[in-house]
């Protein structure tokens, strides 16, 4: 019988997001994480930048590439796994998070990533998304949000702004958009961050924090679709406007931004509501000092509400929430390990199980 080494049932690992994943003996490079497949996104697509940042960042983790598993759903970004030389599954629409739950629970020695989009994760896969978040399965989710359906050629998505004119909404869309960060925090996700496709340095820093987090990490990536929704994130990407548009979240730092750092974020002590103010009007000491480790999700949720729901002019960028909580897959493996430890599961034990408690013997030779 062919067998290969794999960890025994339920190793119950704890620690960082990658604890339990074997390290590569040789240092790896970007090239090691590049497959032989030709990348086929539209010219100028934000996905290229994310892929390049991901491939550049993976060697830094030091893990074996054969212990990396990338699961995606359906949509432009979901082609991602084909381009990375790891184990990968380009699955079906909306279900990547469910499939990844199975992979992560089965294998404590795998670093599991989910690649998904705003339609994939928030429309058809919305149910699975909130459930992987509440369970806190040790998976890193990269949610490429371009606020449009690209692969089906330009229909509005669950993050498109109200009134958006698209092929299916010639008179403007009627449904309120989701704010993915608010949704994730509402599901009590333990790690929630937002970054921008074109800011490689920030994107990489967020990926680093996400991979280090044990449990589900949700990273929303503002990603430009140059064909069907160009410049949806222009405000946060253009040098001329970005200073006033990006509310930077850095753990331990006052939340302060804008030309000459003239703007800041304060919190109403009575309602808990956050707002943007002129620093001169309130004084530096009145500003919120960002704390991503606050257990109560209402803090991070409140911050997430500073995001424009309509056409984007301003949004917080960075790690909203990073708290420790037990990961579902660790606990599930613990239960199996506990049940297995010190108890045989050999053939005799199997025979006992099949026999059950109530058996009787028939001896037909007596007749």
């Amino acid at each position, binding site marked *: *019988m*062919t*067998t*290969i*080494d*794999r960890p025994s049932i339920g190793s119950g690992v704890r620690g960082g997001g990658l604890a339990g994943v*074997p390290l590569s003996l040789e240092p790896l490079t970007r090239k090691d994480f590049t*497959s032989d*497949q030709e990348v086929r996104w539209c010219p100028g697509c934000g996905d290229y930048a994310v892929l390049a940042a991901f491939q550049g960042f993976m060697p830094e983790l030091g893990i*074996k*590439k*054969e*212990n*990396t*598993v990338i*699961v*995606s759903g359906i949509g432009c970004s979901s082609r991602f*796994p*084909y381009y990375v030389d790891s*184990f*990968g*599954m*380009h*699955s*079906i629409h909306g*279900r990547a998070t*469910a*499939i*990844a*739950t*199975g*992979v*992560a*629970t*089965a*294998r404590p020695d*795998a670093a599991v990533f989910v690649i998904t989009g705003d339609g994939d994760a928030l429309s058809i896969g919305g*149910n699975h998304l909130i*459930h992987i978040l509440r369970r806190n399965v040790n998976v890193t989710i990269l949610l490429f949000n371009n606020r449009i359906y690209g692969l089906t050629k330009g229909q509005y998505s669950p993050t498109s702004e109200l009134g958006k004119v698209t092929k299916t909404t010639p008179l403007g869309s009627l449904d309120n958009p989701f704010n993915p960060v608010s949704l994730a925090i509402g599901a009590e996700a333990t790690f929630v961050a937002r970054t921008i496709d074109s800011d490689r340095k920030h994107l990489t820093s967020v990926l680093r924090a996400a991979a280090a987090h044990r449990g589900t990490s949700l990273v929303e990536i503002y990603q430009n679709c140059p064909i069907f929704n160009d410049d949806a994130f222009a405000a946060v990407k253009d040098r001329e406007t970005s200073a006033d548009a990006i509310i930077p979240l850095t753990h331990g730092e006052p939340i302060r931004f804008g030309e000459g750092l003239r703007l800041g974020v304060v919190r109403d002590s009575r309602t808990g509501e956050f707002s943007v103010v002129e620093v001169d009007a309130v004084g530096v000491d009145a500003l919120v000092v960002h704390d991503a480790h606050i257990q109560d999700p209402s803090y991070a949720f409140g911050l997430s509400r500073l995001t424009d729901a309509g056409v984007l002019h301003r949004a917080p960028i960075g790690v909203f929430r990073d708290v420790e909580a037990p990961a579902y897959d660790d606990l*599930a493996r613990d*239960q*199996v390990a506990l049940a*297995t430890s010190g108890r045989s*599961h050999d*053939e005799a*034990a*199997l*025979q006992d*199980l*099949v*026999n*059950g408690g*109530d*058996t*009787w*013997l*028939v*001896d*037909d030779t007596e*007749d």
Partner: protein
Amino acid sequence: MTEVRTLDRVVIRFAGDSGDGMQLTGDRFTADSAVFGNDISTLPNFPAEIRAPAGTLPGVSSFQLHFANYDIMTPGDRPDVLVAMNPAALKANIADVPRGGLIIADTADFTTRNLAKVGYAANPLEDGSLDDYQLHALDLTGMTVAAVKEFGLSRKDASRAKNMFSLGLLSWLYHRPTEGTLAFLTTKFANKPAIRDANVTAFKTGFAFGETTEVFAVSYEVAPAPMPSGRYRQVSGNLAMSLGLVAAARKADLPMFLGSYPITPASDILQELSKHKRFGITTFQAEDEIAGVGAALGASFAGHIGVTTTSGPGMALKAETIGLGVMTELPLVIIDVQRAGPSTGMPTKTEQADLLQVMFGRNGESPVPVIAASTPADCFDTAIEAVRIAVKYRTPVIVLSDGYIANGAEPWQVPDVSAIPPIDPGFATEANATDAAGKPLFLPYLRDEETLARPWAIPGTAGLQHRIGGIEKARDTGAVSYDPANHEEMVRTRQAKVDGIVRDIPDVVVDDPTAPDGTRARTLVLGWGSTYGPIAAAVRRVRNTGRQVAQAHLRHLNPFPANLGEVLRAYDRVIVPEMNLGQLALLLRGKYLVDVHSYSRVRGLPISLSELARDLELEIDALPEPAPFEGAFA
């Protein structure tokens, strides 16, 4: 002095309100009869509502048990004995009791209000309408409450022990052993001494009541049934399915991952397997049917045996993921415990109408092996066979069971697990090709020449990184391909792989005893799944009339056994009884161009053996004489 009469077989139906504990009463009578050595077959029948309004017809829950001194095939069509705990239970079941049958009714619940609730103008226990039956109208509740008075329970709690009083009475009436039920009650209520004592006392008092009163002139004995030597236990289909899955996982020496969502009548399997983590079983109660099968497929990709369990509505939801399993060619076991449909249908009632759904209910050409269990105990072997095929051929496999065998129980000669053959996962461990430069290369879709199965390469295996998915695969490399010729080749290859399993499954066996005068049957009855019991019983009855009839039963529904066409063509008439509108018949006609006759019943109940036997006799008698042989020179 009570006369003791010996019977070959008895059918008892316990009926009451959903909250009256009829299922438990039936279970206990079954267990005691099984341990006594009778052959048994059971039919639990309960409403989908957990507590329908008390005393109403929709709230009636019943448990039918057939026990005998010979091997029986079904839980029986009509009860010889009806235990009715209230007017609704009487009204809902009386039509099934043959004239002369025994009726034991609890008078306590036959109040004016309860009678009116189900439309009785007068009390049937008193108005003479049951004169054709042996009626015993007894105050079971009153006697129970009086018997358990000393334990200080409320009247409500005290009266709840009435099911044990009636079980005690029936145990006396049919000479059942009592140790099993007494031990059961002691364990079950170990933490509630008053409840325990009340139930034990009620049971014993019921037994003593039968013994000491002269209400019953006759008691009955049913001798043990002759069975092959060995160790036996009682098993339901869902339990046997669960045990089969555990056994298969151990035989493959692999961890198993069950991803499921609770659904009637399949939930028992999820519940049962969640108790067996010590055998390396992980159970995941997902947020929905789709996530259940999705997580199972993910676990399969990761090297576990992925399993999901469901019923018809869940199958509909899982269809797309099963298609992904077909495309990615990963092992996956899907268990469909069928129930009456369409839509929500009748969740607690049985049917076999998912056959065409599981055969064809996916987009594209999406072949999946399908196998079906025929009896409660047969679920064990069926589960192992499903895992074997899934692992060997790297394919989803669908197992069909149904509510009848899932909840029904029978005695089972416990198999020797060491005799079950091992299942070889055969994981890929190294490159299987070389590139143009002579470097080792892993081709995830390079197939085994015999089985056409692709390699199962799991994460953590150095050098075997690869990407799979739902998009069409190029042959060998598994890369994305839109090439027309490649698609046609892959569609045909996936079909050929499933078709090729025919070489790996046994021929269908025909039971066709030749008559002493050498004449052979001209009629074949062919079934699949849970109709095995009623068909076998009906065939036995037909043969007892001197008529000849052959019987065959299918486990493998896709692919069909190699000899099936030949078998069908060997008979002048083929009759296919099914609990649907002729789904297997449609498949047989399409594949073999044989004019099979469909016999269909869709009542949410097993096919009635007496009705089937009668109809078979009519069909056999109506079969025209074969044309006289005319020699070559005529």
